[in-house]
């Protein structure tokens, strides 16, 4: 055998070992069962094959924008007060659809430059323009707005991940879904109960700290009576749901509509105990949040604040002194309550609420059924193809069969290596479609080459030159077919969603593998066979 050929053979064997390692790793035992566990450790199945819970959530990013805009309203009011600028109204005309739009009415003409400089200094993220009827319109800068919304999504993802980790799910998927629609995909293999997952995620609702204006009241009516039947526009009535079961029956609180700080201002909360050994909760705010909290607490010393989670008052505490970013809540609280409150504070760092868009549970039995039948079908199909190639092309059929099997090894090995590398490309039903197309195109490449070699032999070429011609002619076609398909697959990968992506991934790697196996490997085998033949001996094809 010539040296060149030997190197190529070694390269092929090396590649095969590399991808076999990807599939099996180093199996603990070589028994069937040992190989099976090694295989399932390395190649992960998608939810559609394995069973589990799949959820798509919509983050209501406008919530986060609303919180920011309400803060801006407060900042403006305060600044106008200290600069003695008159105004009749500062409002958010359309909090539903344009939460970042603020309108200021009734500011005298001579104060316009003051107004501009206030916005520039204190609210640099807003643009200010004059509107109709002497009004001023503030709108958040587009880049800031996007930033705020994206941060809401990534914070939500982080929070949900923390919560899901507590479930102990192996390989959970929690990631942004779709193209910028502020959606999150949550996939939990092996979890059969979506209700439980949703409860867990729902716990991470919106957190705010608000000023307590009145209460507790024993009922909603009592609160309304106290206020003469009308809740002022800047206040809301919230039900209480305090921790630790310290209170009996219903409780209602009247709190400020605007929150002093919200979930996004919170850094971290810990349960601990004060110098007397009493349980308490310490939490840190961001610098910006700390500044606002300082303004709020200085204005309301000796009054009370409410920790509001998902529009329920979870804790009420009195404000002893102005507080910046290091906050301690203590007093009549047991250790469990301190732990729960800090957990709520931490998990409640969700700056926006969530809606569910999609929910799927695949029962483990159904997934197992589709795998079993899918594998049966794939094996039957593969065996039929392999046998046919042997019968139809005899000696050359071995090339085709080796190339096809190697192609599958590389494809599965790629999936295995993705697990080792931590990228986790799972095999899904659409992924299997990609494998089928790969096998089809693999067979096709071999058939193209062999038919061409046969043609060249028929035209009277010697075996070595027929093989050479066959490969070089078929090569052009194979490149064209593969490149077009890979181009389409790449575009599908970029623009498609979950299942379409799975298809595109296996297809792309299958085709790349096929270029290697059907052309390079098959050629090496031909060269090897030819090198052992006498000159003029016929080729088995």
């Amino acid at each position, binding site marked *: 055998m010539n040296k060149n050929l030997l190197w190529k053979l070694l390269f092929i064997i090396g590649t095969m070992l590399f991808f076999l390692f990807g599939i099996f790793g180093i199996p603990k035992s070589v028994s069937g069962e040992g190989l099976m566990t090694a295989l399932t450790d390395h190649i992960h199945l998608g939810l559609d094959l394995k069973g589990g819970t799949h959820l798509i959530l919509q983050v209501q990013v406008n919530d986060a924008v609303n919180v920011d805009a309400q803060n801006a309203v407060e900042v403006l009011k305060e600044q106008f007060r200290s600069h003695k600028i008159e105004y009749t109204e500062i409002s958010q005309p359309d909090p539903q659809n344009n939460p970042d739009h603020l309108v200021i009415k009734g500011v005298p003409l001579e104060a316009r430059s003051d107004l501009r400089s206030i916005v520039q200094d204190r609210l640099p993220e807003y643009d200010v323009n004059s509107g109709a009827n002497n009004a001023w319109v503030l709108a958040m800068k587009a880049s800031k707005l996007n930033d705020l919304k994206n941060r809401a999504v990534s914070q939500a993802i982080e929070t949900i991940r923390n919560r899901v980790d507590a479930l102990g799910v192996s390989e959970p998927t929690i990631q942004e879904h779709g193209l910028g629609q502020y959606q999150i995909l949550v996939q939990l293999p092996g979890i059969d109960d979506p209700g439980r997952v949703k409860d867990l995620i729902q716990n991470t609702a919106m957190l705010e700290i608000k000023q307590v204006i009145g209460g507790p009241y024993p009922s909603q009516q009592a609160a309304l009576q106290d206020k003469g039947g009308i809740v002022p526009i800047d206040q809301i009535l919230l039900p209480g749901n305090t921790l630790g079961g310290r209170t009996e029956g219903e409780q209602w609180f009247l709190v400020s509509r605007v929150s002093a700080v919200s979930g996004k201002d919170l850094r971290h909360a810990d349960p601990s105990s004060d110098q007397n050994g009493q349980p308490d909760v310490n939490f840190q705010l961001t610098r910006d949040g700390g500044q606002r909290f300082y303004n709020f607490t200085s204005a309301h010393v000796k009054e009370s604040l409410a920790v509001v989670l998902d529009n329920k008052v979870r804790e009420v505490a009195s404000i002893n002194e102005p507080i910046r970013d290091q906050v301690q809540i203590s007093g009549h609280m047991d250790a469990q309550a301190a732990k729960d409150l800090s957990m709520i504070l931490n998990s409640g760092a969700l700056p926006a609420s969530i809606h569910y868009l999609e929910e799927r549970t695949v*029962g483990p039995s159904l997934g197992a059924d589709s795998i079993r039948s899918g594998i*049966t079908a794939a094996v039957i*199909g593969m065996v039929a193809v392999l046998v046919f190639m042997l019968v139809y092309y005899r000696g050359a059929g071995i090339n085709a069969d080796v190339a096809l099997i190697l192609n599958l090894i590389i494809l599965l090995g790629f999936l295995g290596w993705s697990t080792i590398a931590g990228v986790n490309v799972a095999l899904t039903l659409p992924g299997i*479609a990609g494998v089928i197309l790969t096998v089809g195109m693999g067979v096709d490449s071999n058939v193209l080459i062999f038919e061409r070699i046969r*043609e060249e032999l028929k035209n009277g070429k010697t075996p070595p030159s027929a093989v050479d011609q066959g490969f070089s002619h078929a090569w052009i076609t194979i490149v064209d077919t593969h490149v*077009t398909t890979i181009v389409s697959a790449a575009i599908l990968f970029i623009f498609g969603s979950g299942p379409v992506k799975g298809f595109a991934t296996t297809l792309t790697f299958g085709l790349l593998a096929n270029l290697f196996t059907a052309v390079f490997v098959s050629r090496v085998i031909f060269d090897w066979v030819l090198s052992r033949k006498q000159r003029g001996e016929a080729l088995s094809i």
Partner: protein
Amino acid sequence: MEFFHNVNIDFLGKKWYFLSFSLIFSVAGLLSLLFWHGIPWGVDFRGGTLVYVRFSHPPDVSAIRAAMDRAGLRNPKIQPYDQPSLNEVLIDLDVRETSEAALDQGKTKIINALETNPPAGKQDLNNASSLAIKNYLMDKDPMHLGTDAEAKYTAQAQAIVDFRDKVRGGVLSSLDELKGAQAVDPAAAASMPDGFYLSDFGVRNVEIVGPQVGGQLRTQAGLATLYSLLGMLVYLGFRFEWIYGIAAVVTVFHDTLITVGAFSLLAPRFEISLTVIAAILTLIGYSNNDTIVVFDRIRENIKLMRREKLSEIVNRSINQTLSRTILTAGLTFLTVLALFLFGGEVLRGFSLALVIGILIGTYSSIAIAAPILVAYQEWRIEKGKRPVGMPVARAR
């Protein structure tokens, strides 16, 4: 072995037959898409609730329908699913039964409607989650494990759920069955009747898609396909000539139309789900592959046979590649047919799309793509222009 030996069929001479064949199928599909069944979107795209329920006895569809009506569900579709021996029913609710606020309200209503006379204070083991079972075992502590039993009872609960879902296929008919179950402790099994009863059904699978996702997915899948076709067009235009790219894209469009049309004609037996979309993408790839093989041969032969008419060259190229076309198509068809026959109910729609797609995709590269090239060339000649891809002679 060799199937085809020096074949010489006049494919282009039969172009009118091909055209009428394609027209019949595309128009039939198109009419069904426009005026009859429309596009039979699966739940992924139209939104709605699908609940797959397995019963412990042959299901009585009319009784189920009556229960759904009593629960106030609007127009539920109830049909037997998969083989009759599996006692499985698919309940399909309109998208109106889901809402932004409570996505799963339809599912809850179905389960409540099917629970007939639940004994007070007991849970339905056929529809209990492993968590509920664990909590019950922790409470009851039948194995006397004391306080530190969480891990063991979690494993017990999982073993019970596994037995129910994997061994018994999702539904138990007697609580006594648990006593013989693998990995289930006899004491735990014996304690179950105190807290659980068995209904006659188990929910195997649930798919709920809210109203806004469907539209979004449709747009996304459509755009992705459109862009990938554009990519194909550009690559072929660059490698061959523009007309080749256009012919390939028209061919692929023809294949997709006929396949989607077939789904529409067969509705509601088959629906276009996300996996069917993957199958359609596969057939696009396959058909395109087939077309390029023929095109490549045409390009090669144009260089060799300079004096021949293009129709002659195209015919020769199709015949030369015919053996490979039939072989590849046959073998791929074999794989896909195995999937259709043995792949199970979940894969049925997916493999049907592939079965149709491979047949049409093979046919179309011969019957559609090649004739388009020739027709275009003849049209150019008639207009007195130089045919694309032909060599030019210029005065020096």
